[in-house]
C-alpha cells in the first residue's frame, strides 16, 4: 500500500510539471463545461420565438422525451450530446498522464533502477494506473458537477431532470472510470512501442473513437442514446478493460521492459 502511494505521488510530482499534461487536465474540462453552458445561454432566450414551442416532439426523438414539448426536447437532445462529450475526458486525460509518465520513464532510463526494487509488477501498474485515473475521474466529476450546477439555473426543472437522469449518472460515475482504465491500458501498451510521449498520447486517445462514433450516431439520429445503450457501453468497456489490462500487464514485466521495449 505504501509503495503504491509512493508511486502515485511520484507520478503526480513529475507529470504535473509538464505543461502539456497540465493543460489537458486543467483546461480541457473547462472547455467541456463552457461549450454546453454557452449553448444553453444562447438558446434560453429563444424559447418564446419558436412558434411550435408547445407542439409535441416529432418522431425524430423517438421516446427520448415524450412528456416534453418539441423545443424542450431539442434542448434535452443537445444536452445529451454534450454530456456524452464529457465522457471523452476520462479517456483523454489518463491517456495523456500515462503516456507522459511511461514514455518519460523510458527515455530517462529510470525504469531499470525502479524495477530493481522489490516492488511487484501489480503494485507498479496499480500505482501508475491510479495516478492517471484519479485526476481524470476527479476532473470529469468536478466538471460534470459544475456543469449540472450551472445548468440548474438555466433550464426548467423538467429538462434538468433529464440532465441528471440515471443513465447519465451511470455514464459519468461508472462508465467514466471504466473508460479511464481502458485508456491507461492502451497507453501502457502503446508506450512500450514508441519513444515520443505525444505520439503515445494521441494513439492511446484512439480509444475515444467508439465514443465519437456514438456521438456522431446520436447527432445524425442514427442511434438514440438511452439507458440501454449506456448500460451496454458499460458492459463492453468493462470487458475490454479486463482484456486490455491483461495484455498491458503482460508487456509490463521486468524482462519485457528491459529487453523488448523499444
Amino acid at each position, binding site marked *: 500500500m505504501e509503495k503504491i502511494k509512493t508511486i502515485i505521488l511520484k507520478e503526480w510530482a513529475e507529470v504535473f510539471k509538464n505543461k502539456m499534461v497540465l493543460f489537458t487536465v486543467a483546461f480541457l474540462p473547462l472547455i467541456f463545461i463552457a461549450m454546453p453552458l454557452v449553448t444553453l445561454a444562447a438558446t434560453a432566450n429563444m424559447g418564446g420565438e419558436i412558434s411550435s414551442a408547445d407542439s409535441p416532439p416529432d418522431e425524430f426523438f423517438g421516446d427520448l422525451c415524450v412528456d416534453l414539448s418539441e423545443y424542450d426536447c431539442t434542448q434535452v437532445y443537445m444536452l445529451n450530446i454534450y454530456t456524452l462529450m464529457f465522457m471523452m475526458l476520462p479517456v483523454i486525460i489518463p491517456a495523456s498522464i500515462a503516456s507522459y509518465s511511461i514514455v518519460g520513464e523510458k527515455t530517462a532510463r529510470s525504469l531499470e*533502477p525502479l524495477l530493481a526494487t522489490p516492488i511487484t509488477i501489480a503494485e507498479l501498474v496499480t500505482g501508475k494506473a491510479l495516478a492517471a485515473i484519479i485526476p481524470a475521474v476527479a476532473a470529469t466529476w468536478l466538471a460534470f458537477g459544475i456543469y449540472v450546477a450551472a445548468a440548474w439555473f438555466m433550464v426548467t426543472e423538467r429538462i434538468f431532470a433529464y440532465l441528471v437522469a440515471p443513465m447519465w449518472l451511470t455514464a459519468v460515475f461508472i462508465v467514466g472510470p471504466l473508460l479511464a482504465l481502458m485508456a491507461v491500458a492502451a497507453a501502457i501498451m502503446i508506450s512500450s512501442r514508441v519513444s515520443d510521449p505525444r505520439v503515445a498520447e494521441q494513439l492511446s486517445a484512439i480509444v475515444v473513437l467508439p465514443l465519437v462514433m456514438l456521438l456522431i450516431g446520436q447527432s445524425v439520429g442514427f442511434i438514440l442514446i438511452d439507458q440501454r445503450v449506456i448500460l451496454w457501453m458499460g458492459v463492453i468497456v468493462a470487458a475490454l478493460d479486463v482484456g486490455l489490462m491483461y495484455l498491458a500487464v503482460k508487456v509490463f514485466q521486468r524482462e519485457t521492459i528491459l529487453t523488448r521495449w523499444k
Partner: protein
Amino acid sequence: MIKTENLTKKFDETLAVDRLTLEIDEGEVFGFLGPNGAGKTTTVRMLTSLIAPSAGTATVMGYQIGADDQQIRRNVGILTETPGMYDRLSAWRNLTIYATLYEVENVEQQVEKYLKMLGLWERRHDAAGTFSKGMRQKLAIARTLLHEPKIIFLDEPTAGLDPEAAKLVRDFIAELKGEGRTIFICTHNLDEADRLCDRVAVFKTRLRVVDSPQALRKQLYGRQVVFHLAEAAEGYASMAENLPFIKRVQAVGNKLVLSLEEPEQHNPDIIRQLVRAGANIQFVGELRHSLEDIYLQLVND
C-alpha cells in the same frame, strides 16, 4: 555470496552470456572486465533478478534466482549503467521514493546519511536534473545503498566521469569494501580494477580467466627486471642467457629485459656479473605489466 553455474542468456539469435560459472566470496571486490557487448550488463541483470537466464542457475546470498527474486531484490543494491534519476524531482525526493520502495525503516535518516556521505546534502532540494554528471552518479550511488545491501552491483561506476569525480567514486568504493560488503564491479577501466579488486574476471560472452590482478600478471609474463645501460644492451645478452635462473632475455636499445622468478634473490648477482663484463648500469627496475596488457591479450584471442 554469489554462485553461478552455467549461467546463460540468449536474446533471439545473440548469445550474450555463455555458461558462466563463478563463485564470489563474502567481502570480496570482484571486477568484471570485458569489452562493449561482452554481456556484463546482461550478467548483472540476471544476478539482480531483473531478467531471467535462458539456462543455468545462480544463487545470490543463498537465494535462488528465478525462485526467490523478491528476496534478492530486497537484499542487493544495483547501480545501473545509466543513473535514471527523476530529473524533475529533488535529490531528497528521489532518494525518499527509493527508500520507501526498498522498505527502509528510517527513510529520512537513511536518506540524510547517504546524502551527507556523498557530499550532496547542501544540494538536496535541487532537482536532480540540475546536477552535473558526477553528482548524478553520486546520487545514484546513494540510491544503491539506502537499504544497506550486503551485495552491491556497480555497472561501470566511473564511466564518463572526470578524473577527480572518478577518484571520489573509487575512494568511496574502497570505503564500502572496508565495511565488508561484497562488491561486483563491471568496468572497462583496467587501472580501476587493478587498484580496487581482489579478483578480476576477463569476460567476453564466455569467462576467459579469473584471478587476482597480481596472479594474472605473473601467470602471463612471469616477473621481469629491466636494466638501463649507458651503452647498447645487445652485447650483454649472451652473457645473461648463460645464467641458469634467467628464463628469457630481450635486448632493446639500451635496455636489457630479463625474465626470472625471484629477482630479489638473483638481481645482486646479475648486477655483479654485468659490471664485471663492463656494463655501465644507470637504472634497475621491475617491469610491471599493466592489467591492460593482460586484458588485451585475453580478449583478442
